[in-house]
């Protein structure tokens, strides 16, 4: 506690304590919540906490951007996708677990804990000094200083973020585009499923599509098609595999 009181005024200390509590509770909430919507709301809470801390640290412009871009756009996008997929279905979209993932998480947790202890003890100063220009330049407002920095020292990074935005737009278009040919009937995801459901369906499926519209699967799954044709033994494939 002595570190708190060493240099900080009481209002600042109280603000930090509340904002930090909000951040920690919010981050834990994102991870622990069973419901994605709750996670998203907890994320908003964390982002507000971080924005408050930005103001405390004399980064007013970034605090504003944090609220406008993160809470206002990114989290809304999250919520939008959750709602688009349907709240129940959003639950079912799970990534494949990696082997040893929990162990990695545990190791990582221990590693970061060690780092927290290290940072908390305050033994981090290395004697580094500013190279990109001073942050507090008398009465110059934060936005002014930051803007000057971005258009001088960080001009190239600023320019190439435009490439990122182009990528995001193209990516969104490519990913959201519907495949040209109908997906439903043509592409059964499990090739063996068609063979199991039986030949009549395969035949019936093909009648309303021209030969040019045939999906890839229909060709690869040729034993299913052959099975539908009269005169060809339906089960030659399985027999072959058994022998």
């Amino acid at each position, binding site marked *: 506690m002595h*570190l*708190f009181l060493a*240099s900080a005024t009481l209002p*600042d*200390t109280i603000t*930090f304590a509340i904002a*930090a509590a909000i*951040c920690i509770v919010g*981050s834990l909430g*994102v*991870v622990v919540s069973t419901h994605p919507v709750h996670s998203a709301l907890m*994320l908003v809470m*964390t982002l507000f906490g971080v924005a408050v*801390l930005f103001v*405390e640290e004399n*980064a007013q412009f*970034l605090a504003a951007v*944090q609220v406008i871009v*993160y809470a206002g756009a*990114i989290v809304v*996008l*999250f919520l939008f*996708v959750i709602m688009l*997929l349907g709240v129940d279905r*959003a*639950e079912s*979209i*799970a990534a494949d*677990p990696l082997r040893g*993932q929990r162990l*990695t*998480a545990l190791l*990582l*947790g221990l590693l*970061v804990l060690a780092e*927290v202890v290290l*940072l908390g003890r*305050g033994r*981090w100063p290395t004697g*580094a000094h*500013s*190279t*990109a*220009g*001073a*942050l507090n330049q008398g009465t110059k407002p934060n936005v002014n200083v*930051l803007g000057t*920095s971005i258009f001088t*020292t*960080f001009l190239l*990074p*600023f320019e190439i973020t435009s490439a990122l935005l182009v*990528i995001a737009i193209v*990516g*969104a278009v490519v990913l*959201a585009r519907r495949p040209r040919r109908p997906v*439903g009937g043509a*592409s*059964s*995801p499990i090739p063996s499923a068609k063979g199991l459901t039986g030949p009549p369906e395969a035949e019936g499926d093909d009648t309303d599509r021209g030969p040019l519209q045939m999906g890839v699967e229909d060709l690869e799954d040729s034993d299913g098609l052959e099975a539908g044709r009269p005169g060809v033994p339906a089960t030659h494939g399985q027999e072959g595999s058994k022998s």
Partner: protein
Amino acid sequence: MTVSAAWYLTLAAAMFSIGAIGLLVRRNVLVMFMCVELMLNAANLTFVTFARELNDVGGQAVVFFVLVVAAAEVVVGLGIIVAIYRRRLGATADDIHVLKG
């Protein structure tokens, strides 16, 4: 004068680790993305704290770029989720053919 930088850095490290562990433990992809956002925010907080401590504007400028990257990443990531979901929709839910027109 606000509290010392060490507290901010500790808070950021705690947020980063919560995000990282959450990403590895949770199965839901949307929540995993949110955990990435937590990690990026922790990095941002670290940058801003060091910028204050060094009295250097560079740290704040970097946060600006990280924000742009986060936005671009989220757009593409959510696009990937929607695309996958659509494929699965076409694959599994036979009863909602009507919706696809």
